[in-house]
């Protein structure tokens, strides 16, 4: 948003100088920008960060196991702080100070987690730590859903990820209940129509899908992850042609699908033993896929896809350099061929571009 506004202001100044638009138009556009462009303000951001710090303060307070105060008094203190946070949140929301109100809700949800930790410490509970994280996530989801608070829902989603990751590390098997917890929080985000939350959900789900490659089929399921990712990306490309909401979310879904597919392919190629021929063939495929993504991102002016393509390409080249295809000489030949092909593509793109400009100029 900030970048867009700065760029537009620069452009407006230039267009005004050239006399293409009037001073009055510049003023009008400026007013329109100011009216519409109210994103997440700095005060709200700072308040949310402050709430996060308070949450960490409470957790450190518990960890210190400070003996000057009886444990029941410490629990009482945490409960009082929890009620204080929700009371403050109510007062702030009633006055229309939504940003601050939701920061207070987030602090309350954080204190709930600190309360769980304190009780675990009081009774030396060492059962299954992920269970405690799940209880915390449920509390955060409750606060987020009932109070329509996006920050608390974001906390719930992060906690669902932590719960699942921890459980997976302990059991060393796929954690299917994750899908239930994920769907519950994602549904709340969908109901709230909060885009950042949906991106967070997509990110957490992508990480879970990528982890399947390491857990299923004795850790040799990376090819399946790559196929799932390609399927998602293909679905996104197909959705591009559909009207309405599908078309709008397609580019973002394409990004996640690409990232999943490439993560699976990367693990499949580099974390398992492959003979030089297969490695070279798969690398050609990966590079073709990444170049196609770069091309798609460039043509549709979709920067995230473009950048994902560049990042993936760099990762591919670096990994190949360290792995080597057969011998160092083989790697050298591979890079030389790839370089020549990409330069050829660049020349082709340049020709297409100039041709397009010429036809456009001939049209007027």
């Amino acid at each position: 948003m900030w970048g867009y506004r700065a760029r537009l202001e620069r452009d407006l100044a230039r267009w005004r100088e050239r006399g293409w638009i009037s001073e009055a138009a510049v003023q009008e556009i400026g007013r329109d920008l100011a009216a519409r462009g109210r994103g997440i303000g700095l005060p709200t951001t700072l308040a949310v960060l402050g709430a996060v710090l308070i949450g960490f303060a409470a957790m450190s307070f518990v960890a210190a196991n400070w003996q000057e105060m009886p444990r029941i008094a410490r629990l009482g203190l945490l409960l009082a702080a929890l009620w204080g946070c929700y009371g403050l949140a109510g007062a702030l929301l009633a006055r229309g100070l939504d940003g601050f109100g939701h920061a207070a809700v987030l602090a309350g949800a954080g204190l709930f987690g600190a309360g769980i930790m304190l009780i675990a410490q009081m009774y030396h509970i060492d059962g299954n730590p992920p269970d405690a994280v799940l209880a915390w996530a449920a509390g955060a989801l409750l606060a987020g859903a009932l109070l329509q608070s996006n920050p608390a829902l974001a906390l719930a989603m992060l906690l669902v990820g932590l719960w699942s990751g921890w459980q997976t590390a302990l059991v060393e098997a796929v954690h299917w209940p994750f899908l239930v917890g994920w769907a519950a929080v994602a549904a709340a985000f969908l109901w709230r129509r909060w885009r950042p939350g949906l991106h967070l959900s997509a990110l957490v789900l992508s990480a879970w899908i990528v982890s399947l490659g390491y857990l299923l089929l004795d850790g040799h399921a990376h090819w399946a992850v790559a196929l799932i990712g390609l399927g998602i990306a293909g679905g996104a490309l197909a959705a591009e042609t559909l009207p309405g909401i599908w078309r709008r979310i397609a580019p973002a879904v394409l990004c996640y699908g690409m990232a999943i597919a490439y993560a699976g392919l990367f693990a499949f190629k580099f974390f398992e033993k492959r003979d030089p021929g297969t490695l070279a063939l798969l690398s050609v495929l990966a590079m073709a896929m990444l170049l196609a993504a770069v091309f798609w991102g460039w043509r549709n002016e979709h920067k995230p896809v473009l950048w994902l393509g560049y990042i993936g390409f760099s990762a591919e080249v670096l990994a190949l350099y360290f792995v080597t295809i057969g011998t160092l000489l083989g790697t050298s030949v591979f890079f030389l061929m790839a370089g020549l092909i990409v330069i050829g593509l660049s020349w082709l793109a340049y020709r297409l571009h100039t041709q397009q400009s010429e036809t456009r100029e001939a049209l007027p």
Partner: protein
Amino acid sequence: MTLKRGIWPAMAAVAVLQSAALGWMVAERMTLLESGREIVLPIVPVDPRSLFRGDYVRLSYEVTRVPGRLLGGSVTSGEPLYVTIGRKPDGSYVPVAVSRTHPGVAAPDEVVLRGWLQRGRWDAGSSARDLFLRYGIESYFVPEGTGLELEDMAREKKLAAVVAVDRHGKSAIKGLMIDGRLVYEEPLF
């Protein structure tokens, strides 16, 4: 984002439900400590350097290690196991049976503990490996900076945990004993 009407009932509902959840956790532990059967489990001396990590003590028991021959098939760390432990004349306990469901009423000198595989999975077929279990009584939290004190005591003397066990096999630490003397006693709350 307008929730002005009805904000207070919603706010109160969240605060009450979260407080109730915390209260329920406390009540559940209090019942267990108060009414659970009390046993004394000797703590196996482990390398004192790794015994105390940060601000909690890592406890290991004789019943942590269960002979693999007591269980057939395979098990993952997500599934509970019920270990029947028998009291020896010297006061310590050894595992005598393992099952996937609670075996019901135990003999007078036996107690049933619910535990889980510490991590990963275990197969009877692959080898006669022992099972390493956790019962949820492996961490003992101490005030910041006092771990070393306890460590010194544990090195020279016999350490044991007083554990409460309820009829479902759930266990909780009630206190620590050194040389048969109760040194740390947990208040109920």
